[in-house]
């Protein structure tokens, strides 16, 4: 089947989630004897365009003539690209933009959609896809009944794989009509930190830390590891940490390789957002804390003693690696 991959423009760059979507799309096209293409948009730096060319998809449609934050134009652009490439399957990263555009494309085209896929589709027999449901507490196998199909792929569900092949970038500018929303302002939060949904390593802390003034050591540990920082809901509710760090059932769901939970009890609503993590480390003074049941490694101890020791141990480890 022909596959179209929607690559998100994330402030002039293409982020990891889109490279994973490209890997995913390329593999499905290859195993079903179809062709894969990418649709992307807006100003993109050279590294991003080169990056997109390295995942085995030979054709990149690039539209620069678009208001890159406008849902209706991005929807029209995607549909025009589907027509141009005869795609039967459209893959979006299940990230900020992909998540909001995919349902619009689905309803406009009456193309059945599976949101939050965590694996490759079953191509023989019925076309079914495995997805996250019940906030990460379960999975569903969902069949798409329509000829045109849409999948949004959860970040970190599959690994991106670079291949040695060239791609052609083609300027693409279909008629997109007027934008439906007016973007007044984008307030950057200095976004140089690591994107939490894509982070491979995450250091997270909860109410056990006692107060916002104690996050210095959490940030230092994250920094040493090259990890993103996260927190439990009460911590963001009280304003100790920014709310975009809140993970869990009502926050964001993440699936890093390593999740280190410090001073977090492990309530079921918290676990819902992190139980897709490959390895979980829990540091808690209370050996009965429920989080230990969901953990791979645990330290029963006081964060204020354990975290500084971890920082030292990571520094020593890195020195040994160098």
């Amino acid at each position, binding site marked *: 089947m022909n596959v179209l991959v929607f690559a998100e423009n994330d402030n002039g760059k293409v982020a990891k989630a889109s490279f994973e979507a490209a890997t995913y799309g390329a593999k499905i096209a290859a195993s079903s004897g179809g062709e894969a293409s990418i649709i992307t948009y807006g100003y993109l730096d050279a590294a991003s365009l080169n990056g997109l060319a390295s995942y085995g998809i030979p054709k990149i449609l690039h539209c620069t003539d678009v208001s890159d934050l406008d849902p209706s134009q991005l929807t029209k652009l995607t549909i025009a690209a589907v027509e141009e490439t005869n795609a039967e399957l459209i893959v979006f990263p299940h990230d900020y933009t992909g998540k909001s555009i995919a349902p619009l494309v*689905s*309803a406009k085209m009456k*193309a059945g959609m599976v949101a939050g896929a965590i694996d490759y589709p079953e191509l023989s027999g019925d076309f079914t896809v495995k997805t996250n449901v019940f906030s990460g507490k379960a999975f569903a196998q969902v069949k798409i009944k329509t000829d045109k199909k849409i999948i949004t792929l959860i970040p970190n569900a599959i690994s991106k794989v670079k291949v040695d092949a060239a791609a052609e970038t083609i300027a693409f500018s279909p008629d997109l009509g007027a934008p*439906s929303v007016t973007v007044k302002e984008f307030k950057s939060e200095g976004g140089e930190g690591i994107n939490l949904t894509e982070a491979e390593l995450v250091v997270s802390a909860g109410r056990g830390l006692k107060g916002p003034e104690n996050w210095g050591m959490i940030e230092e540990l994250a920094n040493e590891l090259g990890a993103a920082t996260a927190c439990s809901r009460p911590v963001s509710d009280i304003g100790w940490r920014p709310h975009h760090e809140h993970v869990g059932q009502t926050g964001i769901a993440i699936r890093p390789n390593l999740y280190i939970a410090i001073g977090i009890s492990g309530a079921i609503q918290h676990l819902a957002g992190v139980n897709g993590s490959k390895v979980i480390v829990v540091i808690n003074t209370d050996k009965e804390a429920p989080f230990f049941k969901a953990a791979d490694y645990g330290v029963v101890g006081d964060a204020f003693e354990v975290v500084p020791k971890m920082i030292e141990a*990571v520094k020593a480890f890195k020195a040994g690696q160098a």
Partner: protein
Amino acid sequence: MNILVCVSKAPDTTSKITFKDNDTKFNENGVQFIVNPYDEWYALVRALELKEANGGKVTIISVGSADYEPIMRKALAIGADEAVRIDSPASDAYQVAAEIANYVSSNPFDLVLTGKETINYNGSQVGGMIAAIVDVPYTSNAAKLDVNGSTATVERDKQGGVEILELALPAVISAAKGMAEQRIPNMRGIMAARSKPLNVIPATVTDSLTETISFSLPPAKGDVKLVDSENIKELINLLHNEAKAI
């Protein structure tokens, strides 16, 4: 201002999730149902605040069977004026959206609010689909919402910052954390809810585009490996050599 809030039924966040009929159906036995948190805490409460400021009416709508009514009464107790139940089990996001879109086409609203996502299906789909079918502007994941005349101003989180945008009403907007503060229904609200209208209307569309074939649970975790707090070097070793996580 005439506001429609889409309200979904969800298992309480502490529910143990199990399946029945050969893992093809969610086992509702012993499960407590709630109004989907995003719909209740943010979409509904913000709709009530807008009504309190500008006048108008707040209607809630659900696509579901009779078992939806208790959570709909809860939404009425929080302050919605009336409720509409489209009498059909919810089979997929498109079917739900198409039903609501049909209703909206013959009963126009200034603003349609949904939650960011349901906590059971986590699709973030229904709002966008309604907007696409009705053909009105849409934005997802709004953390703040203000209305001035026929313009809505929305703040939404994006990777790396916050985006502020305007859209012309009528529009569909999905609500995320930050838009309002949870309200607990009081006795008067609960009494009043009993006599507020809850209209049941027949479904119009039946086609869903997807079908859930089966469910499964993640494999159980093995026992946690405890590391002594005096031996943190060992933890880093394990994470590197055994877990291959760093």
